[in-house]
């Protein structure tokens, strides 16, 4: 297992196993929350394609554990230097600007025709949209610098 990675180009070596432990702890916490919700019958409504919030949490938790373990195999030593930091901060800045623009447009649309989709669905669309915007902006900024 390659448990070393370079961070921020200044020869700072961080123990990757520590990060993995944090990830796994959070995933297990999500699964436990899901189990508790299921046992206590909390949130027994259709939720993002699952018939309860608890089951969705269990699914997400297990998925997070699987992804964390899969990442061990694919993790390689990488250098993060000042250019990459600059690109990341620039794309984050543009993503933030796009959030404000997006929120403004949604407010106008909601004023014209009320948005009646459930809040969790709206937020999940928003998060997916932002991730896509961030990835696209990152690729664009990468070509600029």
């Amino acid at each position, binding site marked *: 297992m390659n448990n070393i990675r370079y961070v921020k*180009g200044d020869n700072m070596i961080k123990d990757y196993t520590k990060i993995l432990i944090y990830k796994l702890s959070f995933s297990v916490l999500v699964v436990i929350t899901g189990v508790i919700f299921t046992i206590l019958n909390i949130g027994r409504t259709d939720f993002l394609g699952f018939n309860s919030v608890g089951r969705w949490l269990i699914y997400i938790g297990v998925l997070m554990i699987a992804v964390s373990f899969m990442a061990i195999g694919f993790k390689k030593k990488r250098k993060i230097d000042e*250019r990459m930091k600059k690109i990341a901060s620039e794309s984050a800045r543009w993503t933030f600007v796009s959030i404000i623009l997006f929120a403004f447009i949604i407010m106008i649309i909601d004023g014209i025709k009320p948005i009646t989709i459930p809040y969790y669905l709206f937020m999940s669309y928003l998060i997916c949209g932002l991730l896509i915007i961030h990835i696209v902006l990152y690729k664009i900024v990468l070509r600029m*610098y």
Partner: protein
Amino acid sequence: MTLSKNKLKEFREQHSLSQEALAEKAEVTRQTIISIEKGKCVPSLELALKLSKIFKCKVENLFQI
């Protein structure tokens, strides 16, 4: 901010170093070296000092604003 003088490429070629080798010595990626050489990116003080140390010259001989 742009640099009025950027002699990184000249110094690199004088020292017969490839972009990859220089990047390795300066502990950055090759893309960063390319970007600085093209003038797209301005190096930080730390990187500029590292590069001057590699080429054993003054920073102002490499870069100027």
